């Protein structure tokens, strides 16, 4: 009997994942990955409820349950990476890093070492012979977050939810009476929690006043408390008040300056030519040519012409895309197949 370790977060998706695998005859063990959370002294740990929910479902299903403590690795590889990227003026995506470094590397390795034959998660994606495919639910498809996983890891991975839509998943969880069937989906970056990214970051970087400058006139419009907190295309939170809304179109981290415009058609906001670095291909490197790309999770797939350059990949788009932000990922598809992607320079 194939022994599968399922990452159980205490949410409905991973709960149903475990239930489906039990029904399909796998020997299933539930695993809660304890990732890094900020400890607030004297406060109740925010993850305790999720852990208890995950365990409750494991007990309901009559399967073994383990806790893998990845706190230190998670802090180094996901949290510190995220803070560094922000420091360098980019807008990183920690979920992608978490999948690359923790779920499909550390978790996989630890599970295999512990006796598992495969792992499974509640991601909305499909995998076939080590090839990553978009989920049946195109609205929920999470391949965007999975493009940095290796093909080898995928040969040892099951995504049982790939064939279902989210409403179907809820319905199936209800039918099975799973304890988490009606639990609200989690939002945002887990370790940042409810406080929001700005407040989270301000614990690690000094607030430093700088100028908000109109890109076109060069005029100083106001002050901000650190260029690090601003991201391309951002409209709100700019303390320059009055008149048309301003949008962030650039920043200079050395000078600690944020550049803004009221021009919705500003070239910095719209790109047809994207350069990617740190390119990762799940399986083989695809030939140059026409593919589909996605510039953010749940964004519509758009046509792009892929070519190779010395230091990365160049994508030429038929139509413009808004706010293609340095540090964010662009993921490349060949129809249903997620090929890989890279990070916007």
């Amino acid at each position: 009997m194939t022994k599968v370790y399922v990452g159980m977060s205490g949410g409905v998706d991973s709960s149903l994942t475990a239930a489906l695998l039990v029904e399909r005859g796998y020997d299933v063990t539930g695993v809660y990955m304890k990732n890094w959370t900020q400890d607030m002294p004297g406060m109740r740990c925010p993850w305790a409820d999720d852990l208890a929910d995950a365990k409750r479902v494991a007990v309901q299903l009559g399967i073994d349950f383990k806790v893998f403590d990845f706190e230190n690795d998670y802090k180094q590889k996901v949290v510190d990476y995220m803070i560094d990227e922000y420091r360098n003026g980019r807008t990183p995506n920690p979920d992608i890093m978490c999948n690359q470094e923790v779920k499909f590397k550390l978790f996989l390795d630890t599970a295999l070492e512990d006796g598992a034959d495969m792992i499974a998660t509640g991601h909305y994606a499909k995998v076939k012979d080590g090839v990553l495919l978009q989920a049946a639910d195109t609205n929920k498809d999470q391949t965007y977050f999975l493009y940095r996983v290796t093909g080898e890891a995928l040969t040892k991975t099951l995504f049982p939810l790939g064939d279902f839509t989210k409403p179907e998943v809820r319905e199936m969880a209800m039918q099975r009476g799973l304890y988490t069937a009606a639990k609200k989906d989690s939002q945002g970056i887990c370790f940042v929690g409810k406080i929001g990214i700005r407040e989270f970051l301000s614990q690690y970087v000094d607030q430093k006043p700088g100028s908000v400058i109109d890109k076109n006139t060069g005029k100083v419009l106001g002050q901000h408390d650190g260029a690090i907190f601003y991201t391309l295309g951002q409209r709100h939170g700019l303390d320059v008040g009055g008149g048309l809304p301003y949008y962030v179109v650039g920043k200079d981290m050395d000078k600690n300056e944020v550049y803004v415009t009221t021009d919705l058609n500003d070239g910095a906001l719209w790109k047809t030519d994207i350069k990617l670095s740190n390119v990762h291909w799940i399986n083989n490197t695809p030939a140059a040519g026409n593919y589909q790309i996605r510039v953010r999770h749940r964004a519509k797939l758009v046509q792009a012409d892929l070519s190779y350059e010395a230091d990365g990949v160049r994508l030429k788009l038929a139509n413009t895309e808004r706010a293609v932000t340095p540090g964010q990922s662009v993921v490349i598809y060949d129809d249903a197949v997620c090929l890989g992607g890279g990070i916007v320079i």
Partner: protein
Amino acid sequence: MDGRVLAVMEPYFSNYFYNPSSPYAPAVTVRRRYEEAKHSLAKNIGSKPDEIVITAGATESINLAFGAVSGHVVTANIEHHAVLSAANSHDNTIVSADLHGLIAVELIKAAIRPDTQLVSIALANNELGTIQPIREIAHLIKQERQTRLLAGNQTPIYLHTDASQGVGQIDCNVARLGVDMMTLNAGKIYGPKQVGLLWAASHVKLVPQIVGGGQERGLRSGTENVAGTIGFAKALDLASEHRKYESDRLQKLRDDLQTKLTDTFPEAVVSGHPKHRLAGHLHISFPNIDAERMVFVLEARGVLVATGSACAANKGTRSHVLTAIGLSDEVADGSLRLTLGHLSDEENINQASQIIIEEVKREYARTNR
């Protein structure tokens, strides 16, 4: 909550919602009912009404008690987090309980220094049910006071007990216990949550921890929790009235349950003092069983049990009490706290014991497959 408690509280959420400090007649009625409730509370613990401060529960009472002193304090390693945290803000000595969770009077005696101002020991331990020798400790404190008097040492020394856990089953008359301060909590006796009291003898100088409008003789500001206090008074009335009967009844049920479980599972470990233990309390460990799993299995079958300690379970760490009494990890992690109460009877305790036996067997079978 006891239905009778809820019934007496209800009017103070509706027709009698007036602020007891307001001048008009209906508010004065509310004030009078509030004072009557405090009289009733006082009567049940053998004190005067103006020695009682109504708080928002035992944790606040404990903070108020510790706030009365600035010097050295003595407490024990199995005390509730509220006590241990409060002790942490003072120079302190923490004595160790024995393997039954009993705190030896001699250890307290040895821990008392000339500058010790407070000894705080719970009447009964919340996890193990062990009842502490409070009267003997009170006697010790009286001797210490004599010694100080003769030596010309003017440092006061008080004994505080958190009797929240014991008040339903043990006589909590402050004079008979011989304590200087006592904490009670309504929630533990089928009363409302967020209501408690601190009784302090008239010679204790309390220092307000919450200041404002000067309610509770200036010791605890904030509009009085009228409904809560009236509910608390009713709950304590009922607890006092049925104490003896209820205690005997629960002890028999508990002993039956304990025998059934230990006969079936000879490897099970019962913690807490064999004799000096709360009647409705059974702390039992099934070595190598994951107690948290048992909580989830049992709740699905209608049997609600706690693990070592609810608070500790929430933090995902082992109970400090179980570590303190020297339980090994594999025993501590298999610990269930079974508490019996008003709703327990022969039939449902029999059922519960059957279900627990089935599920523990099933779990042993599952893990040994």
